[in-house]
């Protein structure tokens, strides 16, 4: 009987369709856009949106975040929201949702543990290991046997390279879950890393020791030859008697670290001891006439200067415009800076003999020698007004 009544206006409503066109229908060119606005068909939630544009979505969100709902429900919704963001790999937003959920303080321990663990996972994927660890620890405190928290905590420790702590987390976890494969896996990996790190420390120590003993052997070799090194930056004290000098020079050797030996030359060459026990020095030859220099990276102490000079000047250097730097014309000097005295060196002598000269101090680990052409005008100029020995 009721069907024939049209009091509810249904018949009239239905009749309208027969005559009027449906407004606001989807049309060809905008139906996809419109579809995305319907919450049911949304693939992702829009970041920010105007309620007018998405009225249904605004409604739903208002329901979800309604402050009048009990805190547990709100917290649970926020957890679900966070999980959704997490699935989309939007970890920042996930963290915000979880944090909001935790703020509700709903008192449900299980839920809080899950929120913390999930937040820890989000931090983990963002690379915030410390925050992740902190959250995992908080979750563990609330629920000591919460497996996901235990696994996450262990993983964070591994990432932070704190392998002992990782093992501790695993052992705690294995107490409650003795057969869990993931925990066993992490434990085995952390143990392996730990032992590798211990090996690396041992290796570094052994290498350090080796380096140290090589250093000591080198310094001992230098010292035993009576060669004196100038500590870079040490101010010269003007000692008058020879005893004072000896003291000073042996003190310079005694307190010498390898830094005193490192050459300031660009090549970074350094004196070394070869297998036969001979020293090889980086040696600098200076040509003040032309503001030039030559560098021999490894001059064996047993070689004499003529050997090297012959090779160096077998072809005259380009800067020797006068073509006068022939090996037989060259004179060698070294300078004692303290007394501003030049000492002539016989090119036939060995480097070792020269270095053993009482007044020879090696500066910056690299002996240097001045080269002049005998009899040249520059030679005359250079040597006038200087003390020569």
């Amino acid at each position, binding site marked *: 009987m009721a069907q024939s009544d049209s009091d509810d206006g249904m018949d009239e409503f239905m009749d309208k369709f027969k005559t009027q066109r449906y407004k606001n229908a989807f049309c060809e060119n905008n139906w996809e856009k419109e579809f995305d606005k319907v919450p049911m068909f949304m693939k992702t939630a829009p970041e920010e949106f105007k309620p007018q544009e998405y009225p249904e979505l605004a409604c739903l969100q208002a329901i979800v975040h309604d402050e009048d709902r009990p805190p547990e429900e709100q917290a649970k919704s926020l957890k679900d929201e966070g999980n959704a963001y997490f699935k989309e790999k939007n970890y920042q937003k996930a963290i915000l949702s979880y944090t909001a959920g935790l703020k509700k303080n709903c008192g449900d321990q299980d839920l809080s543990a899950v929120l913390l663990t999930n937040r820890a996972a989000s931090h983990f994927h963002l690379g915030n290991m410390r925050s992740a660890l902190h959250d995992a620890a908080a979750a563990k405190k609330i629920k000591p046997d919460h497996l996901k928290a235990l696994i996450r905590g262990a993983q964070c420790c591994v990432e932070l390279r704190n392998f002992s702590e990782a093992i501790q987390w*695993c*052992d705690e976890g*294995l*107490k409650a879950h*003795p*057969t869990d494969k993931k*925990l*066993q896996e992490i*434990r*085995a990996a952390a*143990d*392996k890393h730990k*032992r*590798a790190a*211990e*090996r690396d420390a*041992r*290796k570094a*120590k*052994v290498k350090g020791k080796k380096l140290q003993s090589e250093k000591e052997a080198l310094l001992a070799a230098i010292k035993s030859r009576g060669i004196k090194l100038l500590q870079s930056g040490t101010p010269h004290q003007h000692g008058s008697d020879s005893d004072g000098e000896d003291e000073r020079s042996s003190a310079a050797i005694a307190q010498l670290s390898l830094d005193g030996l490192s050459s300031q030359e660009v090549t970074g060459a350094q004196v070394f001891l070869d297998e036969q026990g001979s020293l090889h020095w980086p040696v600098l030859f200076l040509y003040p006439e032309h503001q030039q220099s030559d560098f021999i990276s490894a001059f064996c102490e047993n070689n004499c200067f003529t050997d090297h000079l012959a090779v160096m000047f077998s072809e005259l250097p380009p800067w020797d415009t006068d073509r006068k730097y022939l090996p037989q014309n060259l004179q060698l000097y070294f300078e004692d800076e303290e007394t501003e005295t030049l000492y002539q060196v016989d090119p036939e002598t060995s480097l070792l003999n020269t270095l053993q000269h009482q007044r020879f101090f090696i500066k910056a680990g690299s002996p240097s020698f001045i080269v002049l052409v005998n009899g040249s005008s520059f030679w005359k100029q250079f040597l006038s007004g200087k003390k020569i020995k």
Partner: protein
Amino acid sequence: MLSDSEATELLSFLTPSTRPDVKGRATEYILGLSGNRDGCRFLRSKPDLIVALFALISDPSIAIAKDCYHIIINLSADETLHQVLVTDIKIVPVLLKKLLDPEHMFSDQISTILSNLTRHQKTCKTVFKVLQEEVGLAQLVEVFCNECYNKNAKLHYLGALLSNLTQLPEARSYIMDKDRCVIQRLLPFTQYQASVVRRGGVIGTLHNCCFDHAHHDWLLSDNVDILPFLLLPLAGPEDLSEEENEGLPVDLQYLPEDKQREEDPDIRKMLLETLLLLTATKSGRKTLKEKNAYPILREFHRWEKDPHVTAACEKLVQVLIGDEPEEGMENLMEVEIPEDVEKKLKEADAKEEEELEKEQERRKQEEEEEERKKSSDAKLTDREQESGLIK
């Protein structure tokens, strides 16, 4: 021994409500009794006394409780007492419960008792059954591996207990459970400097476990990685080249100059025997060869002085550098040995033992000679000094 009436009187002194000084004297006296075999056998005939003593381990007086524990230790050292203690009086569940209490003062004594009770297979089986029912082996291992578990007790003897338990296949399969993390926790203790008992117990456990060659691949795999822990105590501060080092297992690389080898020769021998067990299968031999066990053993052989241990080392090295056995003989543990060959092997073993003994005797005599010479030299110089003084 005591007469029946004397025993009854003694029993009356062992109630909790007795005056402490009387109680104390009684327990002291019984402690003395338990110190020798006859005393123990006597006590065996008076189980009421043992029951009373066992109750007194909870006595408020520490001295009395301690004495009672020591009495039980002595009794448990005698195998004929085991039936009474374990089956009749059922001391094991009570002891296990106290063992788990981190505050208990006498957990070391309990560990010793349990270790005594498990020495021989028969009682060991019973104890293991009770253990599994009450506590579970996993928990025992956890307690043992946690050095700070009980501040009043070191629990080193739990190592000996574990070692004894693993004479049973059921205990071994529990410790080597692939789905759990049990044996892995024991491994670091092969290097435990502070206690030879703990170390020996752990190595004994591993030694027993290696009798099950079905587990060898797993034991040698990364999941357990037993090999470095067996080799480390045998490795010394050798200065190996960088190349040699890089070929070793990680834990054996770049050992510091102050690295010490295992100081107990019996434990050294046990380690070598365990390694030998691991060479029973083809894959085990392969692993040991690949992981460069040989250089470690070579250096060890140079260092070792004890002839028994050296012999064990040589046996192992022979397998490592020898050729692979022929087809069908690859698993050395499963090879059928014909009777006459077995007899000959046994004779050869016996002869070897004899020679080792002689060697050891000879060394001992040499050492004593040295000592005598040293002291007589000293006497000589003393005399010289004296004569000097007189002059």
